[in-house]
């Protein structure tokens, strides 16, 4: 609106400043792509010139062929869909359950004081260490995988969201109490809306954590999914499959993270418009 700049009156100096910035940004972008391309070209050359053994290091063309083969048989989509599905359910459930438990602990300070040391220990524990136990309890199935994914994200969600709840300004809570508001209204009118950014941030952290849980789970029990493709491929020495899966996993994780980031932007924009 009125930020002191009028679009018409751009000086020559300002124009050349813009031009320089744009040129610099283009350079960065191109260099990034070239670097990636170089990496694959180098990899391919190294295997073809037998600098490295493509049987254990795979190769870009080998991976491409594996991808085409897996796409043709229609199985790649299934593996992808399974991993995406498990991860989504894992981090959505983890965030929802973590937030719900944070509400409970905020509500009952006795409970949260009692449980504090346990939460600290649980938070420090690598949750994937629990995966074998979960599988024994729940069984060789998708529920186990999702449970592991959920476990990786739920404790850290409780801690970050609860901390956000406790950071709400005392005076804002007073505002609700002045109007005769009860604890439930303090929660719904101030504490929760004030912490929407905090919860979305937890969502962001949980995407990555949930992927870790899902892949470990799939390593152990799955018949489907990228984690399964990785272990299965390494057992039968199909390294093309293994490395293809790892690359797909990287792309997938980045895409999902980006999705949450744009969701975050949209939510924050709507709040502050």
């Amino acid at each position, binding site marked *: 609106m009125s930020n002191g700049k009028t679009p018409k009156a751009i000086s020559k100096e300002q124009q050349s400043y813009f031009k320089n910035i744009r040129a610099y940004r283009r350079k960065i972008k191109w260099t990034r792509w070239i670097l990636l391309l170089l990496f694959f070209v180098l990899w391919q050359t190294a295997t073809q010139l037998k600098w490295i053994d493509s049987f254990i290091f795979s190769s870009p063309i080998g991976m491409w062929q594996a991808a085409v083969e897996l796409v043709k048989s229609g199985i790649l989509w299934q593996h992808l869909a399974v991993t995406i599905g498990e991860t989504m359910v894992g981090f959505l459930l983890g965030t929802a359950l973590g937030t719900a438990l944070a509400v409970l602990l905020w509500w009952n300070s006795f409970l949260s004081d009692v449980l504090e040391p346990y939460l600290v220990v649980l938070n420090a524990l690598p949750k994937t260490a629990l995966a074998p136990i979960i599988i024994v309890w729940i069984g060789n199935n998708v529920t186990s995988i999702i449970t592991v994914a959920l476990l990786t994200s739920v404790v850290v969600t409780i801690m970050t969201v609860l901390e956000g709840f406790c950071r709400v300004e005392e005076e804002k809570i007073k505002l609700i109490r002045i*109007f005769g508001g009860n604890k439930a209204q303090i929660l719904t*009118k101030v504490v929760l809306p004030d912490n929407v950014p905090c919860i979305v941030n937890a969502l962001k952290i949980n995407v990555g954590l949930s992927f870790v849980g899902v892949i470990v789970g799939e390593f152990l029990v799955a018949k489907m999914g990228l984690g399964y493709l990785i272990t299965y491929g390494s057992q039968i020495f199909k390294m093309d499959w293994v490395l293809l899966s790892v690359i797909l996993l990287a792309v997938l994780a980045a895409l999902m993270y980006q999705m949450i980031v744009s969701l975050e932007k949209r939510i924050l924009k709507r709040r502050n418009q």
Partner: protein
Amino acid sequence: MLPAIMLDNVSLSYHSMDGETKAVSELSFSVSEGEFVSVVGPSGCGKSTILSMLAGLLTPEKGSVTIEGNIGYMLQKDHLLEWRSIRKNALLGLEIQKKVTKEEEAYVDMLLKQYGLWEFRNHAPSQLSGGMRQRAALIRTLAVQPDILLLDEPFSALDYQTRLSVADEIGKIIRKERKTALLVTHDISEAISLSDRVIVLSARPATVKNIYEITLSTEEKSAMKAREAPEFREYFNKIWKELDVHV
């Protein structure tokens, strides 16, 4: 006139592991219906504590507090909720008290129009100036139609220029709406220019040191004009000495 607010021998201490802090000690005063009373005292003497007791947020350990009517409370900062529009912020109290009806909404809209915020009703609080935000906070307080207004240094977050005009304006609004008002401030001029009486408190724990009836020779009670009255300086000097501010 009937007293709208009455404190009778009220005492209250805060307790923590570091010990006991006596905030208010055997404090008594009253405010009549329709009266505008200011409370001045050194910072940390227990002024906010007194308002919290009047609003029922704290219970006195000794003595009694009597309130005739509904309380409206205005805090030092406006605390407008950023995720709500100005109008939604103004409706907050009604929402909490589950009293949002067509008539109440119309009343809030009327207040928004009357006090120059109608055009900004759909704006976010961050888009408004400090003075406008404080006005929006006042409308939020008035929306629940309180009989008594408690104001806890409501202008101290504003810069000096805005502060004078906002204090003037809000003082006028309160008189126009015929509310009983108890204003806490550490600004002596503000207290003299706005009120019928000024209560001077001692340092912590708060007790009444003196009470001044303010009569100024300006006909109209305007915070700006009041400062020009010849009596103004006299009151100011007396209260200033009483407060015994050591620099």
